[in-house]
């Protein structure tokens, strides 16, 4: 066991982890942040996507110790109290949630996209969400949601 120090959704976290424990296991089983979903565990489905130091990564393919001293943002950290994040808002309006299992990973991937390029064209959106699999296959609603969110982000500055 090794001590680990990081910030999750703005809160400092100190805990002891096993050396080969994945970030996903720590988030879900130790910190009980079960918004982040466990899917294939090998980087294909993207449901475990979280933001580590500003970049969307697979938490199932990241050892917790890799994130030492890092800043993590999960789906739980997006909303401000009762106010949803613009991407979440757009998701509701576009009906993009569907069964909801891919939603946390998808929203984190979109969050990373909109940070880097606030007004993505459709190709950029497709490339950004390529790493998250939606088995409802309703990708058009998701693309619609990203476009709404991108418009919303620009409106609010």
């Amino acid at each position, binding site marked *: 066991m090794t001590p680990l120090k990081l910030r999750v959704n703005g809160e400092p976290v100190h805990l002891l982890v096993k*050396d080969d424990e994945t970030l996903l296991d720590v988030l879900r089983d130790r910190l009980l942040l079960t918004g982040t979903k466990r899917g294939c565990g090998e980087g294909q489905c*993207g449901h475990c996507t979280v933001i580590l130091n500003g*970049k969307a*990564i697979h938490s199932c*393919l*990241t050892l917790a110790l890799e994130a030492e001293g890092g800043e993590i943002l999960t789906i739980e950290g997006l909303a401000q109290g009762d106010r949803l994040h613009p991407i979440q808002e757009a998701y509701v309006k576009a009906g993009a949630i569907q069964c909801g299992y891919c939603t946390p990973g998808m929203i984190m991937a979109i969050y990373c996209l909109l940070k880097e390029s606030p007004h993505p064209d459709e190709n950029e959106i497709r490339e950004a969400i*390529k*790493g998250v699999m939606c088995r409802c296959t309703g990708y058009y609603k998701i693309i619609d949601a990203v476009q709404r969110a991108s418009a919303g982000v620009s409106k609010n500055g």
Partner: protein
Amino acid sequence: MDEVRFFPAPNVKEASRLTKEWPVSQAVLMAGGTDLLVLKKLKLVNPRSIVYLKRIPGLAEIRPDGKGGFIIGALATLDAVGRHPGLNRNYPMLAQAALAVASPQIRYKATMGGNICLNSRCWFYNRSPFWRAEYPHCRKASGGSQCYVTPRSRQGCFALQSGDTVGPLVALGAALRLVSDEEERIIGMEKIFLGDGMHYLALRPGEVLTEILLPAPVGRGAFVKFRPQNNLDFATFTLSVIIPWKGAGSRIVAACVASRPLRARQAEALLDQGEINTNVIAQEAVKEFNLVSFVRGSLEFKKQVMEAKLTEIMARLKQPM
């Protein structure tokens, strides 16, 4: 079961020393970990010590070498390589190859060094222990005596080299800097691959790949990664072609179809001699590649698509700009 230990290495020498402290195969080097952790989950790699490289300072830099070429630190992520303006200007085929790898989430973590040293892959190897139990004699997975890809072979392993950036690096004539705690050497990109799926890299114990050295560009290049769908898959094959601006020195490289990247030297000579019919060159090249593995696409399929794609990109390259 023994617990796995995680050692963040402060520098390259220490990383090299740490791996040597353990018996071979019990200590592994990890950079992005996007391939290693999958292999670990499948119990194909069972390390007792993971030596973590990403905290070594300075190794993620991409910088011009002052002689018209570039030096890419082995820890530069595929995302950083794919978006680097200098690399996009001078080596567009390399940037394209980096961005052709899997998904953004993988590219933010995975590194250039890792993509070159990527474990060779096979239909019978990259599987769960349960699946593998049905094929117990695979040489690579369980040290058996058979190869299910080439049942008539007496020895050797035909698992495929799979890094997308390898083809362009070979075509560009890149070299690699390998550093251990005792010595340092530079090896050509083609020489690092030994051509056997099991012992696929010429890395000695304790050696760490630190830099990729790119010479100044010599001509126009084109890169194609072929996969049946535009999804996250590994390539069925990649093709990298360079036609020099003047003189001889064309390169035609096929990668991800054998345990090492393949060059078609006779077809390159045809190209240098000014053969106009690109289909003739493509046919010669595909014959020369002499594909054996049906993994990721049947042989006939691979040959036909490869010929068509080669013809197409060479014709495009030969057109005046």
